[in-house]
């Protein structure tokens, strides 16, 4: 191979790449939506829940944040079957992403909840709103707005982390790259192109979050 | 000879012109008080004199030297002659009071540490805080911090001292200790240019009063006359509002 770069071959494999990109996006979309949902539940539990719940969620958060995503993936895909829970690659990948993002977003969203202005809650209580109503209508959206950039960054991290799901044969982008590289032996070119694709996906995901922030959360378009 | 000579100074932030042709002379040894509403441009004018703000037209001459160009070397030269005390004190929190005062003489003037230490002790004594040499800013009251800030500026032996609303951030009962220090400096002959809201102080200690309005010098003169006989409705309104 020497210094002679050859990218021409790769276009012939575009179907493989497209399939990989599609699956990465699918994993990210499902993983992030469910992960954020878990995060909202976890944050609310830690902020407003009874002590025993706070401890359990706290333990979950600490366990996930202090272990690598890859190890969590292996544990879920290889370890759980020994306990009778057998999962397919995609299911395991999504579950790991949800569990992983759930822990990080619990902390991120909790910071948002904790920074809620007391006056807001007092005003809502004075209007005879119940706790869950106050949470849903007064607290949640402003809290999400405050932490939206941090949450967006974390989701990008999760998307980039999905690359290691190739190790359990989930056929996402890295798996596609490995496949192509094993066929044409142009390792550097294949991985270079894949890296650029990931970069584009990361930029796109960040932009998508800004759009959601603008239209769903009514944030200003900075 | 005027120590500070400002001529037709113009400054804009983008399309917003905040100084619309300001001319002012500050005589050596005099105390000039600058008053006016917020947004009148008074702090901006002050900050152009030590180069914290750039200006687009006009000229500023300090101690015979024109401020021309804003090269780092030129600004450094200027700041060796012009001292500044800020509304928010801006003491360096990781250094003690004495170290705050010593820092610039050692670093910018390359003074030997022992000599700088002596000067620092003298300056702190001058502002009445000799015993606080080793105290950290967080352990000092607002009034004490501001006095240290004054000592810090004085340690550089400036020709003129700029004071940007130096009592505005202080609790009322701490204002007097700072004004007492400034009064002493005035008596000793320091050239002072002060943006202030303390009307009584301006009247008693000031030699020259400048009232700024919408980016221009609207009225100026001897403080007592300007306060008692405002010539323009804007100043009358300002004085009335302040006295109310």
């Amino acid at each position, binding site marked *: 191979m020497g210094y002679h770069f050859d990218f021409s071959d790769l276009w012939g494999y575009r179907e493989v790449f497209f399939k990989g990109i599609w699956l990465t996006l699918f994993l990210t979309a499902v993983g992030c939506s469910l992960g954020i949902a878990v995060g909202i539940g976890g944050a609310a539990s830690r902020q407003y829940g009874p002590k025993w719940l706070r401890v359990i969620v706290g333990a979950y958060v600490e366990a996930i944040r202090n272990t690598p995503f*890859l*190890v969590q993936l292996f*544990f879920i895909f290889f370890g759980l079957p020994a306990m009778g829970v057998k999962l397919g690659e995609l299911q395991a990948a999504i579950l790991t992403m949800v569990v992983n993002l759930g822990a990080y977003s619990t902390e991120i969203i909790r910071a948002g909840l904790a920074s809620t202005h007391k006056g807001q809650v007092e005003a809502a209580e004075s209007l005879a709103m119940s706790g869950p109503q106050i949470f849903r209508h007064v607290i949640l959206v402003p809290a999400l707005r405050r932490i939206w950039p941090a949450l967006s960054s974390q989701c*990008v991290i999760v998307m*980039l982390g999905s690359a290691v799901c190739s190790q359990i044969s989930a056929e996402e982008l890295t798996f596609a790259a490995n496949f192509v590289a094993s066929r044409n032996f142009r390792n550097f070119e294949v991985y270079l192109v894949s890296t650029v694709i*990931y970069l584009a996906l990361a930029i796109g995901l960040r932009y998508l979050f800004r759009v959601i922030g603008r239209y769903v959360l009514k944030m200003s378009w900075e | 000879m005027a120590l500070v000579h400002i001529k037709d100074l113009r400054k804009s932030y983008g399309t917003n012109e905040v100084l619309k042709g300001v001319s002012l002379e500050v005589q050596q040894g005099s105390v000039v008080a600058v008053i006016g509403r917020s947004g009148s441009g008074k702090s901006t004018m002050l900050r152009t004199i030590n180069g914290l703000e750039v200006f687009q037209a006009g000229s500023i001459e300090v101690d015979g030297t024109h401020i021309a160009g804003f090269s780092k070397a030129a600004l450094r030269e200027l700041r060796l002659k012009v001292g500044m005390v800020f509304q928010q004190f801006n003491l360096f929190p990781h250094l003690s009071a004495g170290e705050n005062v010593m820092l610039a003489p050692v670093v*910018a003037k390359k003074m030997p540490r022992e000599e700088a230490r002596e000067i620092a002790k003298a300056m702190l004594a001058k502002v009445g805080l000799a015993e606080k040499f080793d105290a950290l800013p967080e352990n000092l009251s607002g009034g004490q911090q501001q006095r240290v800030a004054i000592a810090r500026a004085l340690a550089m032996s400036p020709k003129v001292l700029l004071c940007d609303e130096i009592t505005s951030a202080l609790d009322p009962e701490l204002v007097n200790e700072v004004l007492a220090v400034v009064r002493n400096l005035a008596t000793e002959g320091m050239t002072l240019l002060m943006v202030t809201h303390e009307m009584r102080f301006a009247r008693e200690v000031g030699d020259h009063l400048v009232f700024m309005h919408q980016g221009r010098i609207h009225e100026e003169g001897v403080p007592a006359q300007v306060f008692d006989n405002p010539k323009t409705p804007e100043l009358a309104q300002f004085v009335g509002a302040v006295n109310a």
Partner: protein
Amino acid sequence: MSDISTWDIFRNLLLAARWTIVLTLTAFIGGGIVGLIVLFARTSGNKALVLLTKGFIELFQGTPLLMQMFLMFFGVALFGLDVPAWLAAGLALTLWSAAFLAEIWRGCVESIPKGQWEASASLALNYMEQMRHVVLPQAVRIAIPPTVGFSVQIVKGTAVASIIGFVELTKVGTMLTNATFKPFLVYSGVALMFFLLCWPLSLWARYLEGKIHGSRSH
């Protein structure tokens, strides 16, 4: 085959943890040095340098660590050199850490109030003197908690090195699973080892963070 006891598993994982620690320290120290260079370039004001470092940071923050390791592995090999896994992993992790550390530290420098810059400028200090005597002493203090916090990310990042063949905790875990057919036990052990390495650092970072915010009185 299955006469490998739980104790054997534990012992092997413990030995493997050494390599995790070595790779972490290499990346932390190397990344710190490169990160400082990137920081000074990023804040220098020189348009070309700023653009270059912005690109570097965007690249290493916006692509998977695994890809970066692959590129080091196959990229360096293009020069005809034999690339051992530890070198590719070490290089990738170092540059990756540098990008993140540079941004963390830049945030700390930028959080120093403007008044500090103005006061020191008014005292006729130049840029280097301002940085050395006034800004950096304060910035370093507030940079310590997030830097310790990031070290946790580096420890976790070493797991990815197993994919390109570097023998550390995760790789040994995989090897043990293949030998013992006890994935639940083995990967629990691997997770536990990582937890024991990371959790104290996380707690320490949180403690330091509390100290900084407790003592800020202005």
